Every structure is written in structure tokens, then in C-alpha cells.
């Protein structure tokens, strides 16, 4: 069976031909199987964010191919990529990206309007997702009424609401203290144990150590892979 993520000699160039041409990715190849927990590490400017955007189908490569669950992402238009993100990928951001005017429950349920889940099923589903991250009793709280760790767990519940294959987390512990960061990473480990594929982007080796495999990037290239 093919891997969930098949990346083959991916290039990404910004501002091609101009004076400010940036070669963000150079021939990156990577394969991630179902249920893997991998970390992509590297200092800022190494291209790890560019790689994450490509894996997340937010961007398209300049050269090379990327197959997600057998689908060649380069052949998709902007709407098809949006639907692919909805169905396959859950994003977790460093800054949580919760909408402050909505309650925790509404934040978790937010992606459902773009899918096909009937209205009547949305609330129970969002409540179940909140309960899954241990925040059932905070459903009606606004993000400002929650701690950082709680906010990130709301964001994780939101990422999981459409039952994605992949959880793509960009510095998920960057805005948290080390104890709550550990809790979030423990949650990832548990989700992975339940069959989710987790990709962690971080510059922090201690965080990356929670993954089974660490890929290190430097100057747009994947330079090193270590497995635990």
C-alpha cells in the first residue's frame, strides 16, 4: 500500500526570475505512512514552514510531485485543494487561531459548515470532540476565558472535527509553558495511538523528540533523518 504522503523531489521558488528570488525548497523527498508520528525540525529560514504549507495543500510546488492519499495535489484547483484540506488535514497553529467572538464549542464546530455534516449532527459532534480533549465543561467559554493549554486543546478539537487523516501542527507548543506543552504532546501521542498521522513542525529538539522520526531541514534541503 502506498504511503499517505509521498513527496518526490519537491522544489519551491518564490519570486522566480526576480532580484528577490528565494529557493525555499530544493529537491525534498519524504514519505509518511499512515499512523506515523514525524517531526520536521530546522532553524527559521530552513524551509520547514514552506514544506508544511505544501503538505497542508495551502501552497503548490514549483517542481516535483506531491501525492496525498494517492491524489496528485498539483492537478487540483484552488477549490479542490480547499476540499482536500477539509477532508484530510487538521491544522494546529502556534497562535491557536481561535475566533474570539465565538464560544469554544462554536470554534470547534466552525469547519463543519464547509462540509456535508447535517446541521443537527454538528453540535453533538463538536461536543464529543471537546470531550475528547477533556474540555466538555468549557463548551460555552470564550477563548479569552480559557488558559493557553485549554485554547490549544480547543484548536486540536477543531482540527479533528472533520476526522482528518493527518494532524499538521506548526509549533503547537510554542506559545505554551513546558508543562502544558507536554500535555499537548501527550495528547498527540494518544491521538496517534488511535490511528491518526501526526506531523509536527518545530525548531525545538525536545518537542521533536516526542515523534518516532525526526527530519532536519537546512537551507531548503532535508539533511538528516533520525528514527527513535
Amino acid at each position, binding site marked *: 500500500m502506498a504511503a499517505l504522503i509521498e513527496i518526490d523531489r519537491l522544489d519551491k521558488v518564490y519570486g522566480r526570475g526576480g532580484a528577490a528570488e528565494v529557493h525555499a525548497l530544493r529537491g525534498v523527498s519524504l514519505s509518511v505512512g499512515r499512523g506515523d508520528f514525524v517531526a520536521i525540525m530546522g532553524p527559521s529560514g530552513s524551509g520547514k514552514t514552506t514544506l508544511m504549507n505544501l503538505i497542508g495543500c495551502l501552497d503548490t510546488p514549483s517542481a516535483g510531485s506531491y501525492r496525498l492519499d494517492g491524489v496528485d495535489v498539483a492537478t487540483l484547483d484552488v*477549490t479542490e485543494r480547499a476540499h482536500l484540506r477539509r477532508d484530510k488535514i487538521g*491544522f494546529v497553529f502556534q497562535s491557536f487561531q481561535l475566533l474570539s467572538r465565538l464560544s469554544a464549542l462554536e470554534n470547534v464546530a466552525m469547519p463543519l459548515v464547509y462540509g456535508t455534516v447535517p446541521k443537527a449532527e454538528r453540535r453533538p459532534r463538536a461536543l464529543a470532540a471537546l470531550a475528547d480533549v477533556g474540555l466538555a465543561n468549557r463548551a460555552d467559554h470564550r477563548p479569552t476565558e480559557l488558559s493557553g493549554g485549554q485554547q490549544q486543546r480547543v484548536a486540536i478539537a477543531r482540527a479533528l472535527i472533520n476526522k482528518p487523516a493527518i494532524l499538521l501542527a506548526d509549533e503547537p507548543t510554542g506559545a505554551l509553558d513546558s508543562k502544558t506543552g507536554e500535555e499537548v504532546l501527550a495528547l498527540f501521542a494518544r491521538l496517534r495511538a488511535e490511528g491518526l498521522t501526526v506531523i509536527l513542525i518545530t525548531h525545538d529538539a525536545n518537542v521533536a523528540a516526542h515523534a518516532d522520526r525526526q527530519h532536519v531541514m537546512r537551507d531548503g534541503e532535508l539533511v538528516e533523518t533520525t528514527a527513535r
Partner: protein
Amino acid sequence: MTFRDTAGLALQALRGNVLRSVLTALGVIIGIAAVIVMVAIGQGTQSRLDTMISSLGSNRLEVQSGAGRSGGARLGAGSKPTLTQDDADAMRRELSDVQYVAASVRMGAQVVAGDANWATSVQGVDEDFFPINNWQLESGEWFQPRDYGAAAKVVLIGQTVKKNLFGDEDAVGKTIRVERVPLRVSGVLAGRGQGGFGQDNDDVMFVPLQTAKRRLPAGSAISGEYVQQISVGVTRPEAMGTVQGAIADLLRQRHHIAPNGQDDFNVRNLAEIIATRTETTRLMSLLLGAVATISLIVGGIGIMNIMLVSVTERIREIGLRMAVGAGPREIRLQFLAEALAISLGGGVLGILLGIAGSWVAGAASALPVHLSPGIIVLATLFSLATGLFFGYYPAKKAAQLDPIEALRSE
């Protein structure tokens, strides 16, 4: 994404800043309310004019004595009587396409019946006067042909006079004294209501022309055979112009006016005057409509402005929604729905305000007001169009954002 989902997202966003949403809608609210009030007044005035035209009879010409002279000073129209009963007879005899000719005089009078009295105007008229002016009889009977020749002491009274002199009693056969001259009430005329210029059309009394001239002191003041006005009913509307010219020629000849001399009479075409007024009203509504349209455009620009601000403010939300699976179409729909909700909400509030405003305008002034369902439908469509037109660009801008840039922006 279903329609309900889209509407839900829009309302959710607008609820987040109620004051701003209402202020943004204010331009549309005022614009729509203005349109409703203006059109209600315009249509009311129009329909009153229409009623007036039909009540006056559109095939009517009025001949009046011209401006008299006192030394070098020209006096007003009708100040010096120049028309005579013979002029009227000549018109009836010599002109074609003329159906009715009615000479008349008018005077103010204090009238008494029993212990009630009333100040009104008394007109001495020819038999043709009533059909020309579309008068109908409510009770009693018209003057008999011999009444005109014999200067009989009979009178026809309007509703206002009847009410003031006799209240609810039957007036036919009763006696009214006009400056000590007793007149028998021959009939009561049907009510005609308020005239197009605000006057009371029912505050009138009519006596045969000869009665006014020979029996009433005020009428005797108009010397000899002179009359103040001759009304001419024309058989068909197309003949108005030729009859008008023929009357002028006839009178110039009869009054011995030199070809380059000043007419001592004037012929007015009432239908023309009313048509001019109608045109004026139409221009007024057009002008007010233009003003209302401008205010709607201003309101729409307000919406566009706030929506652009909103897109900038919520750029991270847009990026997030794109990341979790919203396509460009869904983002565009969401922001378009917000603009539409503002403009449609503003439209509905504006319609309510406009209805209230029309009602107040009608109650507080003599302006006739007519609210038609058509204008309310039109106002709703107009506000929808405003939202769609001015909301499209910001929505398109939001949909074209790059999710990576949007998520990264502060």
C-alpha cells in the same frame, strides 16, 4: 454550504458588532425611507390631480375678462368686465365643436336661513354651467328653463352650505336669504370634496344668472349685460386648440380690437394648466427619486467601506476558514451575505421608517399620501441590489486572499 449556513455565518459576524452593523445600515435605512416617503407623497399628489382633472372635465375652456386699466396701471384679470351675455350667445351660435357655453358671475355673500348664517360665494350661472362642471344633484331638482328667463328666486346649494345652514335637515324647499332677498332651495348638489388647490368645492351656491344680476344687490353692481366668465365645453379633446383660437378671433372681432391691439379677455385651457402641474409633479418625483438614489449610493459606499475594513480586520479568520476547508466561493458567499444582510436589514428598517414617515407626513400636513405595495417591493429589491453591488468587491477581495499570507498577518 447551504443557504442557511451562509445566512447563519453572516448573522453571527454581524452580531459580533451590533452597533457597527446598525451604523453601516443607516445609510440604506435613510435612503429607503426617503424613497418611500417621496414616492408616497408623489403618488398621492398625482392621484389627486387625476381626480381633479376628471372632475373639472378635460374638454373645458375658460374665457375671462382681461386686465382692466386705471390710468396707466394695469389691474388684474377680470378687474373690468368686458364679456357680455351676447358674447356667450355669439359663441354658442357661431362656433363649431362647442357643446356648452355658460356665462357666469360670482360674488361673496352673507347668507341666512332661520337663525343660522354663513359666508359663502354665490354664482349666477347659465343652464350649461352644471353639465360643463360635472355637477350632480343629491336631492331636489335642477332649475327649470323658465327660472333662467324669469330671474326666479331659486338656489342650488353645495354640501358645505347645506351643512352650515340646515345641519342634517332636508334643505329642499326651504328659504335662504341672501342680503335680504329670499331664495327657495331648489336642490342640493352632490359633494365634490376638496379641490386640487386645497379649496372647498362644496362651499358654493348657484342662482340663475339673471337672478344674480337683477335681484341680488351685489350682482347689480356688475353693470348691464356684462358677465365675469364664460365657460365653454368642447365636444372633443382634439378640437380644444381650434376652438380656443376661434373664441379669441370672435371676441377680438366683437370687441373691435385692432390686429395689433391688446386683448381685453383671455382664454384659458384648464386641461393645459393641469397637465403642466402634472408634469411639474412628475419632475418633482423624478428629482426626489434622484436624491433618494444618491443617498442609497452613499449608503452602499458605506457598506463597501465597512466590508473592506472588515475583510482587513478579519484577514486571519479568512485564512483560518480557508485552512479548514473553505473554498473561495464559500468565503465570497459569506462576505456577500454579510453585505446583503446589512443592506436588506437596512431596507426593511427603512421601509418601516418610510411607512411611519409617510403616515406622519400625511397626518401633519394637507399633503395627500399614497403607499403602494409596488414601491415596497421595489425598495426591497433596491436594497438587495445595493448590498449585492457594493458587497461584491470586498467579498471578491476576501476570496482571493492567499491563506498563508492571511494566516501569518497580524
